[in-house]
Every structure is written in C-alpha cells, then in structure tokens.
C-alpha cells in the first residue's frame, strides 16, 4: 500500500510539474488528465473508492473534455503555454506556502483514529447525502442547473 501510494503520488506531482514545463498547451492538458488519473489512484489507496471513480468520471472524463473544446475554440496563437512576468514572486510564494503548511502539519498533534480502512463508501455516502446533507445536495443540483444555463447563454451567438 505504501509503494502504491508513493508511486501514484509521484506520478501526480510529476505530471503537475510537467504542466508548467511543457511548451504546448495541449500537452499541458494531457499532463493534467494524467494527474487527475493519478489522484484517483491516490484516492483509492485512501480507501475512497466511490470518490475515486467519480473523480475519473467527472474530472478526467468531463472537465478535461470541456477544457479541450475551449482550447479548440480559442486562437492558435495563444497555445504556447507561456508564463507571465510573475514567475519568481509566485515561486517564492508557493515555496513559502508549502513550507508553512508542512511545518504546521508536522508540528500538530493529530487525533489519529484507531479504526482501519473503510469497507464500502458508496452506501454510506448515499445515506449521508440524504439525511444530514440533503440541503447542500439540493442546492448543488440548483447550482448545476444555473451553471448549465449560464454557460449556454454565454456561448450562444446572438441570432
């Protein structure tokens, strides 16, 4: 399990770094898809099977395709994956942020649970979505409808 976790985490982080370094925007998108799939693998090592499959289905299957279409509908001159002038300050900021979080994580005394991994999460997630979390569930569905209608209205040509 440890080997699996670290291999998949290395895959995810490696492809995330490749998004920065590659020269073509479509190659960056393919590295992003690889990192999504790697994340799904990491989720499985954390015994979150339902969330992992939903991640592949929604992120790698739908959001990546959305980005693909958006890239295809945009100019060819903008596909060179350039970086703007904020590279060095952003690097410093991100390094400081990662260092700060790492320090906090190591120094905190977490209440580790003694239970093992979950057996099946799908049924428990379903129960939780319908009893304590029913209001966010309904609001999320309204949000999706609003987003869908909004996206269609934004892209529609005035005829």
């Amino acid at each position, binding site marked *: 399990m440890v080997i699996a976790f670290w291999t998949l985490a290395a895959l995810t982080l490696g492809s995330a770094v490749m998004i920065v370094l590659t020269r073509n925007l479509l190659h*960056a998108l393919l590295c992003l898809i690889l990192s999504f799939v790697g994340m799904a693998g990491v989720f499985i090592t954390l015994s979150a099977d339902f969330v992992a499959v939903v991640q592949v289905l929604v992120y790698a299957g739908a959001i990546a395709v959305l980005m693909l279409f958006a890239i295809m509908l945009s*100019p060819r001159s903008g596909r060179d994956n350039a970086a703007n002038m904020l590279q060095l300050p*952003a690097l410093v900021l991100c390094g400081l942020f*990662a260092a700060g979080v790492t320090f906090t994580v190591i120094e905190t005394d977490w209440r580790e649970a003694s239970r093992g991994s979950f057996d099946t999460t799908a049924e428990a*997630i379903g129960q939780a979505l319908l009893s304590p979390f029913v209001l966010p569930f309904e609001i999320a569905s309204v949000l999706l409808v609003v987003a869908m209608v909004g996206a269609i209205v934004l892209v529609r040509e005035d005829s």
Partner: protein
Amino acid sequence: MSPLVLDARVTLEQVLIVGAILFSIGLYIALTKRNAVGVLMGIELMLNAVNLTFLGFARFVESPRPIDGHVFAVFVITVAAAEAAVALALVVAIYRFRDTIDVDRINLLRW
C-alpha cells in the same frame, strides 16, 4: 517518531504534505500562466489537492462520522465541474469579443 520516516504505513502527515505540495504547484500555475485555460488548470489542481486533504482526514482522524470527508469531496467535485463550465464559457465569449485569451491583455472592465 518523525512522520517523514517511511515505515509500513501511510500516515496522515504524508498525505497532507503531498496535498500541500500539489496545492502549491496548482497555485504557481494559476498565478503564472498567461492563457486563461492554463489558469483554470491550476485552479482544478488546487481543488484536487483540497479533495486529497479531505479524504486524508476522513481516513486517518478520529471523528463521529468519518464519511463526511467523502461527502465534502463529492461536493467539491460537483462545484468544480459547474465552475469549470462557466469559466470556459466565459473564455469562449471573451475570445469572441477581444480575439485573445491572454489574461494580461484582458484588463479593462469596460471597453
């Protein structure tokens, strides 16, 4: 025992550190990409890192109802999908008007 030593288990600290590194890479991408779709890629990476943190906490930390972490992760994925759809519709619409999706050039609120 130092949490970074590789013993026979994956510990909470290791998961959280991986999440933090992924978040900072996503932050770097979101701050430095010149293309609007590139910025969106960074945002999606950040949301993924947050999901990883939620699931790590759900797995390793004592709580009365550990499935809440998974429910949060599912909601984050849902909201990320909705937000990606709207953001990409915006990108396409802006390209139609301004003929560019370079975020450095789209800097006027009215034109």
